[in-house]
């Protein structure tokens, strides 16, 4: 793994505009940044990222099957009691997942470490599946990248296959998101293109325009009944919104399925560590409530005492606290001995239970810290996209960086 400075494609900003990639610059800063790109070897991609990410996804599903039957875990994951049957049913029926993005700390040497898994509402899909794909195509044509170079990116094709696999032919799928957020909209549009290519009917509806019919079904902005709903809106909010009591009785089929509420929940990190302690791709993780005293000289909760003792040195060397519900780095604090804590200013999720995770220091390339986003389509890792930031906590303005494989 290395960061290589490359010439930008002449006129890429015009092309981005033409293609509707309107957020290539955000807040006066570049968001898409192709002044440099990350280069991986095929061995790094296949052995260090692709295979572990696919394996971690399977481990997450094992964790779901354990949590779903256990009120203790559902409680710790803050799943509302009245929604537990709804979630458990979706799991037992085998409702299939569509997509997710694992954020991995990786520097090209040791094993990649799972920071968290946005298995419910990941964005940056257009950048990963499409604009990065086009960048590679054009840079290879221009001779900037060699003829034998490659890119780990069959995200679009695998999405098309997955849509066909989990839906009936010509099924109508509604895609709901916030139309005023270009990033969110680009992600659902990318998905909708793939759904159409799979032969499905794809219809957009603004999330806030979804209505409840007199028959208790959900309907779109044009008052058409919604049979299958893809929602770029987190389950933890769906389960608590005004329409929450109608989720199950509406008969709507949801993508992602309701059980994803357990996977995108950061409380799954302590559960994964409990199921597979010492897993090379996992970081030690606990609920802050169980170990807060222990980290300041007291004792851990008895049920985690042994696991805490095994991970104590690693946690003391540096750890991160984050709320079980949070996106884009909100509420994350990074604590290292002898250094001032690093926190994000966004505290909109900080009132939720917190977890503690051992720190996996992100590599430093020219003063930037990249995080590898491993895309899981269905149950398989089929591509990556990288974000980097000067700060060691990746957030919504972190730059997207293209990648290629060479060697």
């Amino acid at each position: 793994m290395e960061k290589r400075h490359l010439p930008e494609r002449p006129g890429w900003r015009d092309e981005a505009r033409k293609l509707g990639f309107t957020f290539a610059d955000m807040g006066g800063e570049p968001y898409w940044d192709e002044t440099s790109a990350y280069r991986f070897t095929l061995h790094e991609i296949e052995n260090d990222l692709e295979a572990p990410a696919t394996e971690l996804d399977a481990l997450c599903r094992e964790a779901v099957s354990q949590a779903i039957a256990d009120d203790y875990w559902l409680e710790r994951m803050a799943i509302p009691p009245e929604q537990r049957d709804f979630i458990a049913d979706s799991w037992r029926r085998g409702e299939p997942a569509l997509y997710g993005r694992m954020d991995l700390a990786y520097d090209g040497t040791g094993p990649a470490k799972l920071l968290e898994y946005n298995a419910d509402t990941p964005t940056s899909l257009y950048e990963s599946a499409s604009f990065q794909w086009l960048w590679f195509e054009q840079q290879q044509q221009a001779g900037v990248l060699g003829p034998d170079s490659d890119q780990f990116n069959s995200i679009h094709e695998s999405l098309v296959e997955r849509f066909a696999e989990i839906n009936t032919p010509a099924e109508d799928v509604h895609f709901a998101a916030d139309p005023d957020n270009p990033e969110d909209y680009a992600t659902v549009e990318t998905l909708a293109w793939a759904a159409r290519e799979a032969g499905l009917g794809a219809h957009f509806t603004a999330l806030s325009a979804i209505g409840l019919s007199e028959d208790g079904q959900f309907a779109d902005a044009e008052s058409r009944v919604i049979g299958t709903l893809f929602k770029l809106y987190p389950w933890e909010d769906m389960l608590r919104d005004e329409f929450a009591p109608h989720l199950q009785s509406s008969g709507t089929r949801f993508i992602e399925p309701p059980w994803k509420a357990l996977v995108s929940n950061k409380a799954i990190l302590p559960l994964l560590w409990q199921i597979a302690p010492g897993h090379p791709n996992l970081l030690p993780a606990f609920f802050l409530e169980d170990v807060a005293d222990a980290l300041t000289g007291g004792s851990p909760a008895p049920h985690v005492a042994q696991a805490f003792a095994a991970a104590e040195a690693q946690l003391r060397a540096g750890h991160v606290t984050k709320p079980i519900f949070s996106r884009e780095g909100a509420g994350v604090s990074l604590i290292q001995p002898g250094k001032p804590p690093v926190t994000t200013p966004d505290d909109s999720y900080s009132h939720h239970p917190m977890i503690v995770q051992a720190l996996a220091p992100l590599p430093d390339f020219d003063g930037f810290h990249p995080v590898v986003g491993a895309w899981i389509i269905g149950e398989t890792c089929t591509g990556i996209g990288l974000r980097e930031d000067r700060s060691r906590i990746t957030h919504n303005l972190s730059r997207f960086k293209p990648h290629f494989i060479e060697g």
Partner: protein
Amino acid sequence: MILRKRGRRAALILAGTATLTLTACKDDQVDAQSFPDLESCIAASKQNELWFTEDDCRKNFDAAKQEFMETAPRYASKELCEQEHGVGNCGGDPAAQQQSGGGFSFMPLFMGYMLGSMMSRGGGIFSQPMVRTADGKYATPKGDQSFATNRGAGKVPAQSFQRAPTTLGKPPMSATQVNQRGGFGASATSRPSSSGGRSSFGG
């Protein structure tokens, strides 16, 4: 031939419809058995070493009947229904009288039900109603799995027990009367940030 890690297409470039294959993991296969009626299920449950009881038969028969009413396809005409499910396999919609508007008052006949054991996935017995298909087979309302018979045992993908979109009230994409909007999007788990409002529902 070098195996490429990069797909041949992206959403920017359209290259026709993909060749699609339907696959299911072996791990996802569950024990299933189907019955044309409640009596044959009860009779089977009395044989040795089966994974369901007479009680499971009864409870799931009721559940399958109800799910049939909620999710079986509904059609505007009997001809259209018979095109999809075969001549003689359709009837009137018993729920039609209670509906306002109407217009979709024919549906396939209930041809029995399929039980599935979800023991390996953490719990219980699930069921799906069965209807006929145009080519003389049997399928669940969702229609993506079809079976040669409605009286047999075997392994089927757990996804076969996924509920079909509801058709009770109104089938998907049909016009409906909306009473209330705006019940999603309140972002209940997020509170206003001291650094400013939230930007995205994703991340």
